């Protein structure tokens, strides 16, 4: 045990001396953690510029324009009667959405007819579309609901009855854990788990390429040393980055610890295996970095795993992030308990066993003993 601790310390000293590994292991996780959340800090797009094509120019159509402008999601920057001009502004990206109010809008509503308003929004960016469409359609539907309730009241219905007639089966909904469906809370925590995985893989593979660990104990000691640094990063993320960016923090100590340990064990196993695959220290970074984006998609963070074809899920299964990202997000963001993420934890443990088995497969036990003894002898001479 003492010899193993010496090996771990020796590896930590080597990491400090290796500027390339120190950059990946010590600096990159901090830089990414500060840079990645930055664009998503506002969580939602607000005050998106929109246009109103008012072909009615009545008091009611102007009221609809004002109601849209009052919405937090959008800001009316264009009011016109020219549909072509408005559509051109939308195509050119000057506005994110358009609400088209037809001629005779007010007259038809007063006559009790149903009027259709047109809504076009930029569908090339989903968050923009969602916000612009929500802001504009809510204004139109609120105006319609108010008009209808007043009409029913004028026919002798009480307000409660009028509302019940309009919506006989109402739904009260509540979004849990991320009430505003903020994009930062949704995507960044998962990305930070991926940052930890990728930097640990690159660092272990780089160390392996610089100086091959030839015994089991050295391989395990190296992985332990580098994982310790990442365990510190995980603590730093939870104690500094989460409060700094106001991410929900519902994780309890035990589930968080178990998820982190299994995640680091699995990533360290894969990294140790990769450490035997590269012969030049600069290569792991060059090859592993471009894999980050597809690995993120494979984790099911932005597109649920249940929607993926089976063969893709099979392909994604051995990657630690496939199980660590959902486990970490459920535990830290949602407050899930250990049994609630049991499936992910079992999969993480299985991938850890798989990668460690492969990494240690061809390293003999005797060689491990020899290496350890040689190291102790070296230390005692030194």
């Amino acid at each position, binding site marked *: 045990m003492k010899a193993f601790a010496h090996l771990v310390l020796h590896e930590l000293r080597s990491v400090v001396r290796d500027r390339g590994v120190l950059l990946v292991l010590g600096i990159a996780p901090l830089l990414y953690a500060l840079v990645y959340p930055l664009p998503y800090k506002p969580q939602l797009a607000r005050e998106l510029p929109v246009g109103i094509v008012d072909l009615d120019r009545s008091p009611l159509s102007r009221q609809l324009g004002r109601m849209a402008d009052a919405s937090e999601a959008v800001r009316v920057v264009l009011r016109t009667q020219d549909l072509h001009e408005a559509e051109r502004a939308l195509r050119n990206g000057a506005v994110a959405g358009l609400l088209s109010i037809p001629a005779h809008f007010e007259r038809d509503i007063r006559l009790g007819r149903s009027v259709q308003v047109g809504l076009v929004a930029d569908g090339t960016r989903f968050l923009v579309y969602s916000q612009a469409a929500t802001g504009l359609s809510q204004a139109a539907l609120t105006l319609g609901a108010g008009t209808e309730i007043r009409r029913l009241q004028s026919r002798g219905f009480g307000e409660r009855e009028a509302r*019940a007639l309009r919506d006989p089966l109402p739904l009260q909904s509540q979004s849990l854990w991320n009430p505003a469906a903020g994009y930062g809370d949704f995507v960044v925590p998962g990305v930070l788990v991926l940052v930890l995985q990728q930097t640990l893989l690159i660092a272990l593979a780089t160390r392996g390429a610089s100086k091959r660990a030839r015994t089991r104990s050295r391989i395990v000691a190296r992985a332990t040393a580098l994982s310790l640094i990442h365990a510190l990063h995980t603590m730093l993320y939870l104690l500094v980055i989460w409060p700094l960016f106001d991410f929900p923090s519902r994780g309890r100590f035990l589930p968080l610890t178990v998820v982190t340990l299994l995640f680091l064990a699995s990533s360290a196993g894969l990294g140790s295996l990769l450490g035997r695959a590269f012969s030049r220290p600069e290569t792991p970074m060059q090859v592993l*970095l471009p894999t980050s984006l597809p690995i993120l998609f494979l984790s099911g963070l932005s597109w649920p795993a249940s929607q993926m074809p089976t063969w893709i899920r099979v392909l994604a299964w051995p990657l630690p992030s496939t199980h660590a990202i959902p486990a970490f997000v459920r535990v830290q963001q949602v407050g899930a308990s250990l049994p609630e993420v049991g499936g992910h934890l079992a999969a993480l443990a299985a991938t850890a066993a798989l990668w460690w088995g492969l990494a240690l497969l061809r390293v003999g036990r005797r060689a491990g003993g020899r290496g350890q003894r040689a190291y102790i002898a070296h230390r005692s001479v030194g």
Partner: protein
Amino acid sequence: MGPLARAFALERSRRDRPVLALLLPLPWLALLILLALLGRKIPEDLPIDLVDLDGSALSRSLARSLDASPSLRVAFVGSDPASAARRLRAGEVAAVVALPRGLERDASRGLAPASRAWVDGQNVTTHNTALKEVRRVLGTTGARIEPRNPPDPVAVQARPLGNPSLDYQLYLAWTCLPSLWQAAFMVLLVRVLGRELRERSVPDWLHRAGTGPGRAILSRTLFWTTAAWISGALATAVAAAWIGIGLSPAAWAGVFASLLLLLACDAAYAWLLVGSSANLRMAGSTAGFLTGPAFAFAGVSFPLDSMPRAAFLWAQLIPTTHHFSLLAGISLRHADASALLPPALTLAGTTLVTGVVGFLLLRKRLLTPSCWGRR
């Protein structure tokens, strides 16, 4: 390979073969995975948990309607809210819908009994779809059971421009493609240029190429940029055919020109990174730092104008940001040329300024033996 290698100063590139063998197919592999992964295009059969506290004909009819919706699947029906909450917390279901006791009786009396839905807000992709669909099913069932239900005075007909069915494959795979190529290409170029410095092989390289450092840089860069462009253009065509994006010849020309501009800008950055550090590892790490989070800053997942100032300024330095404006403008929104000019000029200007500075620095490093061999 002999004359070609000489013409493009590719001598000694044999050493890079193992890395090139990984880097060149990597973006292709990533693209194919992405296209297959998003094959359903829109979320379907999202599992929900139904807590039926009424057990009436109406509640059973609602359960059937929810299950019949293409977007939803009633995965669990029960009367235990605690179990449903556990499944929602574990991420096994996208939402829990609770139908109250007395639902049918109160609905028939016109008392508008309120059902409740708890939706997993942590998953934004499924959140909106699940909530919208539950609301729609309750709305249509309500209209059926209340004959006096008046039509909405104002109905909204929504149309998404550029992506009519809000297809995730078009939204993510099409826009991710440049990021995949940018990441692999910048790293590749940093490697094939920076390695000559690290290995102290500059004199040998220039001797074999039979040319000076400036021309050697330009020739090698031209070769790899052209290769990446052909590969990227082919991938763009494959992705368009897969997703079902039809473009006019002029639009195709615009998309390919924009891709070339993106790669040229990446090449300029690669020169600057290698030229300023004269250190392959440092240049590679910085290229990774630039290209790794590029997609987050490109304005695809979060609009540029809504980003904090620092993030907005950083996004302006990243070539994919401007390329995405061009790609979406040309291929999806069919923007006017006047609207495409600003991102095109920004990309061209960045390429020019970064390229000149990077070229001069790199050329100087190649001529300075004290800069060789840094690790």
